[in-house]
């Protein structure tokens, strides 16, 4: 019945390209917004560059990240090859490895960990948050108490303790950081679910006999995508920092693999002689997190209608 009504409608009205391709129109608006906002554009460019360099790391890195060259260890950054020696744009580390190449390769680890943890923790947290908010009652009580208890725990110390027990490697870091990070998704998803559950369209869906799964994933989930994406972006910035911190303490990525946090830790011993070994990996962390944060802030303003109006009207905090 609904279909025939649609056919009748489309038969009469001439469609513009916007109607035909709502997705393209959305993209166009998306891009216009992005270019209009200077800070967001900077953030997006940074994030894109980091992602690109991570993907193409083996091709764009000037040297192999693990090849040692003891004769040229702790070389300061050079921009010219006047000496005829090999050029190391950002210098070399304590084993003569090229810093720039290691930073480019280190970015792969950081991004891979951040993306996986966001997917795992996000998926897990959102699922239980949806279940909790949808069913309410005792289910809600139990899930939210678990979230509360885990939030009260010192996450970082616990993560370190678990890592010691199960051994430091990439999988375990992902597991530990996911265990640490799912609660916030559960809370947000539950909060939105509680509001959605009372809406009329949800009750209508219920009334025509949708099952629980369909209600949750087909009717509720699509309506909370934008706040969840914003949250996931913010969390990604946090996870990049967390992975760097764990690696810095020697409980993350292990040598000879390159990770930004680990590189800072390795350079720590040469603090008095070679500042560049420490400075550049740290800068890489800071700039990446900066870019991700800018993108997250922008996503929030674009996807939140209230913020959007504020921005377009050019006023903030109307009384």
């Amino acid at each position, binding site marked *: 019945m609904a279909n025939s009504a649609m056919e009748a409608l489309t038969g009469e009205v001439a469609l513009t390209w916007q109607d035909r391709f709502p997705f393209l129109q959305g993209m166009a608006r998306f891009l216009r917004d992005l270019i209009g906002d200077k800070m967001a554009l900077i953030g997006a460019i940074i994030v894109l560059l980091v992602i690109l360099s991570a993907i193409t790391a083996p091709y764009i890195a000037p040297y192999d990240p693990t090849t040692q060259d003891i004769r040229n260890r702790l070389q300061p950054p050079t921009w010219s090859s006047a000496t005829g020696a090999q050029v190391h744009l950002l210098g070399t580390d304590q084993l003569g490895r090229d810093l720039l190449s290691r930073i480019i390769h280190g970015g792969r680890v950081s991004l891979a960990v951040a993306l996986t943890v966001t997917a795992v923790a996000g998926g897990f947290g959102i699922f239980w948050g949806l279940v909790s908010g949808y069913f309410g009652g005792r289910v809600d009580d139990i899930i939210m108490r678990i979230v509360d208890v885990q939030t009260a725990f*010192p996450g*970082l*110390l616990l993560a*370190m303790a678990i890592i010691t027990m199960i051994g430091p490697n990439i999988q375990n870091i992902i597991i530990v950081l996911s265990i640490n990070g799912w609660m916030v998704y559960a809370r947000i998803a539950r909060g939105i679910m509680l509001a959605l559950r009372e809406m009329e369209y949800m009750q209508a869906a219920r009334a025509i006999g949708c099952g629980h799964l369909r209600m949750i994933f087909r009717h509720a989930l699509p309506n909370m995508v934008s706040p969840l994406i914003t949250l996931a972006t913010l969390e990604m910035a946090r996870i990049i920092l967390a992975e760097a911190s764990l690696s*810095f303490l020697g409980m993350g990525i292990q040598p000879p693999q390159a990770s930004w946090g680990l590189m*800072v830790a390795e350079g720590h011993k040469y603090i008095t002689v070679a*500042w560049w070994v420490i400075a550049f990996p*740290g800068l890489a962390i800071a700039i990446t997190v*900066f870019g991700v944060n800018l993108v997250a802030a922008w996503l929030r303003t674009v996807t939140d209608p209230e913020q959007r109006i504020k921005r377009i009207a050019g006023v903030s905090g109307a009384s």
Partner: protein
Amino acid sequence: MVVFVVTHALGDPARLMLPLEATEEEVDAFRHAMGFDDPLYEQFFRFAKGAIRGDFGDSLWQRVPALSLVIERMPASFLLSLTAIVLAIGISIPLGIFASLRPRSLLDQFCTALSLTGICVPAFWLGIMLIILFAVKYRLFYTSGYGTWRHLVLPAIALAALPLGRITQIVRSSMMDELHRQYIKTARGKGLAERTVILRHALKNAAIPIVTLAAWELTRMLAGYTVMVEAVFAWPGFGLLAVQAIERHDLPVIQADVFVVALIVVVMNISIDLLYGSLDPRVRIRG
């Protein structure tokens, strides 16, 4: 309980604590001496009984009660965290207020840049950079250790950067919200001095989110965020103790440390809830 599960269920504690070259007989003997060969529920019962009385067993490394080791380290961590939070609040409140008074001014932009930097820069890296600049190059402060105020300055700055950034942003945005309200116009209309309007009226009403965030930041620091900074500056707090205990696989100390920190977090959370009541009359309605 979580502590117990993590430390017992995820690996063989006896294997972890002994050196790699220990023979199978040695491992067995040690396991027996520590009671690790008893059934798990019996071990858990013993652990829980001890934990309630504050007894986590002796440190495997120093042969003194684990809890006393942790408590010994508490003043250093508290001193560092409190200094950092006072520093962060002391700078961010005036900065945030000035920024909110002149949105989009040069000061406002500087403010945003500063807080973004604070949020994005990893604390451990900032700590090392500060050491390179102020301890190695200019020799103004000590690179590491504990004792005088010259030891305290650099770690406190490194730790304060993140809360500074976050608090400045919240001060700015909540002050901007308050300054647009009607009562501010009334107060100005009454002819009150601008100073009074800003500090007594607007700031007081903007205080709730600011205090919440500041308290939360302090909790976060005590909940283990100090670890990085303590590790960089060899600051003898319980964060450094945790790192050392983990490196030595000193199980009782790890358990005691996590337990104490969790306790601190719970106490902090309760205090924050109580603090709400005194700040916001609306929370007090049915006390």
